[in-house]
């Protein structure tokens, strides 16, 4: 089922949590909503589920405006961040709940429901736990029960709010791979919210980067990482370094010196240069480069991160050097970003 979010605005007591958000989700896609805390990820997810109504704009399921449908009719599976399992029901009853509350005509018989619950438990690798109560499960197990419960109703769209938020790194990685497998096996259109960019980039077909109630960029992992379209995305996804620069005569300048990068001549004025700390070219001489002295250096896994101080205003910038690079404290290093982007200074 395609889901289309069209120019949706959501206010809570005049406070805009989402400004004019549009998003097309294709059938069968696995989409990640990524963004800092308070950026509106949960709000967007809840709007799709029908748990909130948009202040303006509409959400379409296929060609149909979903605002005319109640939550019950939307047939979405929603997995809450804190699972929201039914405490007084066994695992099997939790999973079977969505089938049990169906109106008489479409309700499968009891044995059928029980059988379906057992199949789903197999799918989420919890076979044999059907008679436990949620209080008797670990966090990761509850998470999987919540997912099985949401999938029991054969939803057209599966929505997960920080599905792995409360779990440790090891379990997260495991569940991540497993969610991908389940998605591939069932083909649900899936949207999940996460704080964790690694999770988003690794798992999703497309990543939706959000900030302050707006969608900053939508794209595959490669697109958002390699060609970020805003300073925010550059800074939020992966490591980045930035330097204030000036654009003049088709060149990028730092302190009245060109650094050897050319840009379209039209964009004169103050700007900021963004690049990845590891994506730099080290130079010997310096006619058109950024050169500075090492003021700090630390070892990060397979590389060395150094902080350079340069220019008359003692600006600092971080780059990565190979571990065997001889640069030590106070030594001079010259470089030029290999891949970079200029964003004009915000007004």
């Amino acid at each position: 089922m395609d889901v289309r979010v069209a120019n949706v605005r959501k206010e809570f007591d005049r406070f805009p949590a989402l400004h004019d958000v549009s998003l097309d989700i294709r059938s069968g896609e696995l989409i990640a909503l990524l963004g800092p805390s308070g950026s509106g990820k949960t709000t967007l997810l809840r709007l799709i589920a029908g748990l909130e109504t948009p202040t303006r704009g509409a959400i379409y399921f296929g060609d149909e405006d979903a605002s005319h449908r109640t939550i019950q009719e939307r047939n979405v599976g929603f997995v809450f961040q804190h699972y929201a399992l039914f405490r007084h029901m066994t695992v099997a009853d939790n999973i079977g709940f969505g089938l049990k509350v169906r109106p008489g005509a479409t309700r499968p018989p009891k044995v059928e429901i029980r059988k379906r619950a057992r199949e789903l438990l197999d799918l989420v690798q919890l076979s044999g736990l059907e008679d436990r109560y949620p209080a008797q499960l670990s966090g990761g197990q509850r998470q999987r029960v919540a997912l099985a419960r949401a999938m029991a109703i054969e939803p057209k769209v599966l929505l997960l709010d920080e599905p792995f938020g409360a779990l440790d790194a090891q379990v997260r990685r495991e569940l991540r791979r497993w969610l991908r497998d389940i998605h591939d096996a069932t083909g649900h259109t899936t949207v999940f919210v996460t704080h964790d960019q690694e999770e988003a980039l690794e798992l999703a077909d497309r990543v939706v980067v959000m900030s302050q109630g707006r969608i900053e960029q939508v794209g595959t992992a490669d697109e958002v990482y390699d060609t970020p379209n805003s300073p925010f995305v550059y800074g939020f996804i992966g490591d980045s370094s930035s330097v204030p620069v000036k654009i003049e005569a088709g060149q990028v300048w730092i302190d009245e010196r060109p650094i050897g990068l050319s840009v379209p001549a039209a964009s004169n004025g103050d700007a900021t240069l963004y690049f990845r700390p590891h994506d730099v070219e080290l130079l010997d001489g310096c006619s058109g480069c950024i050169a500075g002295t090492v003021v700090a250096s630390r070892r990060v896994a397979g590389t060395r991160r150094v902080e350079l101080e340069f220019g008359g205003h003692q600006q600092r910038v971080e780059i990565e050097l190979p571990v065997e690079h001889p640069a030590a404290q106070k030594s001079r290093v010259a470089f030029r970003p290999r891949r970079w982007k200029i964003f004009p200074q915000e007004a």
Partner: protein
Amino acid sequence: MNTAPADAGWRFRVPSVIPGFGLTLGFSLAYLTLIILIPLSGLVWRSAALGWTDFWAIAMDRRTVKALEISFGTAIIAAAVNVVFGTIVAWVLVRYRFPGRRIIDAMVDLPFALPTAVAGIALTSLYAPRGWIGSLLEPLGIKVAYSPLGIVVALIFIGLPFVVRTVQPIIEEIDKEVEEAAATLGASRFQTITRVLFPGLAPAIVTGFALAFARGVGEYGSVIFIAGNLPYVSEIAPLLIVIRLEEYDYAAATAIATIMLALSFVMLLVINLIQAWSRKRYG
């Protein structure tokens, strides 16, 4: 009694890391002994002096049996009514915002605070055949004051806050997401309430029932004004005890009291066991 640890097994719970288990348990036992156990065993002791046949004769006396029936019957009915309407009141107070909510919230506690005799007199004047409400009911052939129905009305009044105040905090604690989860799974509002929310409230409702019931069985002050106190019809057991005392028939008074005690204890114990059982399952 209802806040006691609810482990039905015949073993101590493994003491938690919170220190002072021995000390607090010792203190609790000593305190309960002093405040509850010694006075009550005095009661049993007095009636034991009566001898089995005399005791049995008093217990089986038609007036005693009838008074006990009325006391327990009206208390159960009133507690049941309170469970239904008390839960609704608690729900409304927690879930809806409307002008005057705080005032209603405060009003719920009035039956706690009001001297019961005042309540009894007020209710009697309302429900008496010439009272505001009584005069409306009279043509319909419904007689409230001076009948068992009047006792039920008084006990409903007295017991309401027990249900509201035990259920209210639990409704406040209901996780909004649980309701939303039920809705996304296709449950109607009604199904959500009956299948998801209500079972979660059940332990609190049972507690509220137990408290309202216990209060109702022992209630004296408000009931004697509205009941009319006709033997065999609207005479409650506590009143019968007082009557026996006034006749200097201490043996009969203590015997009736002992029977009340035993019945109440058994009922409360059963309620507690139900609670323990449900808590064990749902954690």
